């Protein structure tokens, strides 16, 4: 089973991949959608799809809507695996 740190590392990878301007220095677990340059509905779709693939989980539309920060996504994944 994956520990919290492993989950966080993978979530970070997903965020870096979706938002090319992000790196270890400017990444903030609590930054909200509106703080990002381009976190629109399609970026959200990409985040959810990548998370589903990487962790082999299914994210429901309700859960999809509750994700506002990288931390939210990390917590969701932790509760599922």
């Amino acid at each position, binding site marked *: 089973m994956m520990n919290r740190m492993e989950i966080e590392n993978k979530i970070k990878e997903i965020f870096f*991949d979706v938002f090319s*301007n992000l790196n270890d220095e400017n990444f903030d677990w609590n930054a909200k*959608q*509106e703080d990002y*340059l*381009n*976190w*629109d*509905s*399609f*970026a*959200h*779709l*990409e985040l959810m*799809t990548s998370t589903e693939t990487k962790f082999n989980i*299914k994210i*429901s*539309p*309700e859960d*999809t*809507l509750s994700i*506002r920060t990288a931390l939210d996504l990390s917590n969701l994944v932790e509760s599922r695996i």
Partner: protein
Amino acid sequence: MTTIVDYLEKHRQDFPEKVFVQIDSQKWTFENIYNKVNKINLILNQFPTNSVISIMFDNSIEFIISYLGIIKAGKIVHIISPSISKKNFLEQIKSCNPKIILTLKKFIGEFETIQNKIKLVDFYEFESENISKKKSEISDISSLMYTSGTTSSPKGVPIKHENTIFTTKNIVNVLKYTNSDIDVIPLSLSHSFGLGCLHTSLFVGSTLNLHKNTMNILEILNSIKKNNATTFAAVPATLTLLVNSFPEKFVEKCNGLRLIITNSTKIPKDTINKILNLLPNTKFATYYGLTEASRSTFMIFNENRKKEESVGKHAPNVQIKIVKEKNQIKEGEILVRGKNVIDNYWNSQFTEKFTNNWLKTGDLGYLDKEGFLYLTGRKDYVINVGGEKVNPEEIEKIVKILDPIEEAVAIGIEHQIFGKVIKLLVKKYEGSEIDISTIISHCKQNLERFKIPIKVEFVSNFPKNEHGKIIRFILQEKNNGNNKDA
């Protein structure tokens, strides 16, 4: 010539202190916005008539001021979404050759490096430039937006002032907008649906409550209640999620709305009936239109309970006809004629799309005996991803740049939130190797987000006809039968 900005001037005289735009907790009155718009107008006087000025903003006050300022100056405003791919950005700039691109510092870095011909200017730096007293004529064309073409290159859609005024009057008359409305808009202003909502608020002098992000659905619901909104415009995907996931909240927050308006991306019958039952006193409406033929029909579901699958009847003074080919019995291509329809595409391209002022939409559908229009599909293979039209050939062309790929086909598969998303089917050359992540990374570098496949499948062969052409509809049917994506 009347322009949409004339209404800003009128409302500024009639009720200068009234709030025109609200974003989060910030508010701007008609007077505030008029003054800022006028300043941009005066600075833009340095450019001749028919100059194109591009704007690239997310939903923001800078978008609204720049858009209206350019129109007031009589120039043509070219609207670029900040989520545009670099390839399309370069193609659009080459096609319309703008004088400058007005944007915000946060977007400059990404686009400055890929071309140096056209200057990207920060809105606030531009605002501090000197004004020019030289006044030029007003261009007939107010704005230019690019839409996905049936070829893989984008089509420039030049919209005239008279198109905008005609369409806006129809929206106002059919949906009964007034200056006492408070309109909540979580739609991108870079698209025809969102921009039409801005025009409507401006035309009647209502208050526009603009949201930046469509994903914050619960915040939008709170904003509807908190601001005593009377109208709410949202894409079908948002409404479907709301009634299925948060029906109680939806009723609690939206019961004061007089109108919910959506657009013609396929809306499930179940969503329509749920909205009508949950909010019996709220008018629920949709329309059918293209950027090049905005709001061609209107449908008020409350008044036509048994026709939920229709997009309604033609808008006032707009004509719709169906042209069938020999083998078509019921459905045919939808053609539209009226002052909401553009005269031609930018640079007079794609003239084959028009005959006697009728626009061939590429959409398939039929009219019932009472004149209600039903959409049944597309003549081409354009895929609608959450309201964005995607030409599969564009994706395929990009993917085929990769050496190991012999053939690629992009199709739309069903998705609970976006209606359709992209699935890519790929055939590799014999003996060559490539993995899915390489294909996806390549797509990310070259395409807008909504065009990136969410699924990739390797196939050994594609079904082909006797001329060797891939038969897309077989792939489409096969994949939608057993490959839905939630």
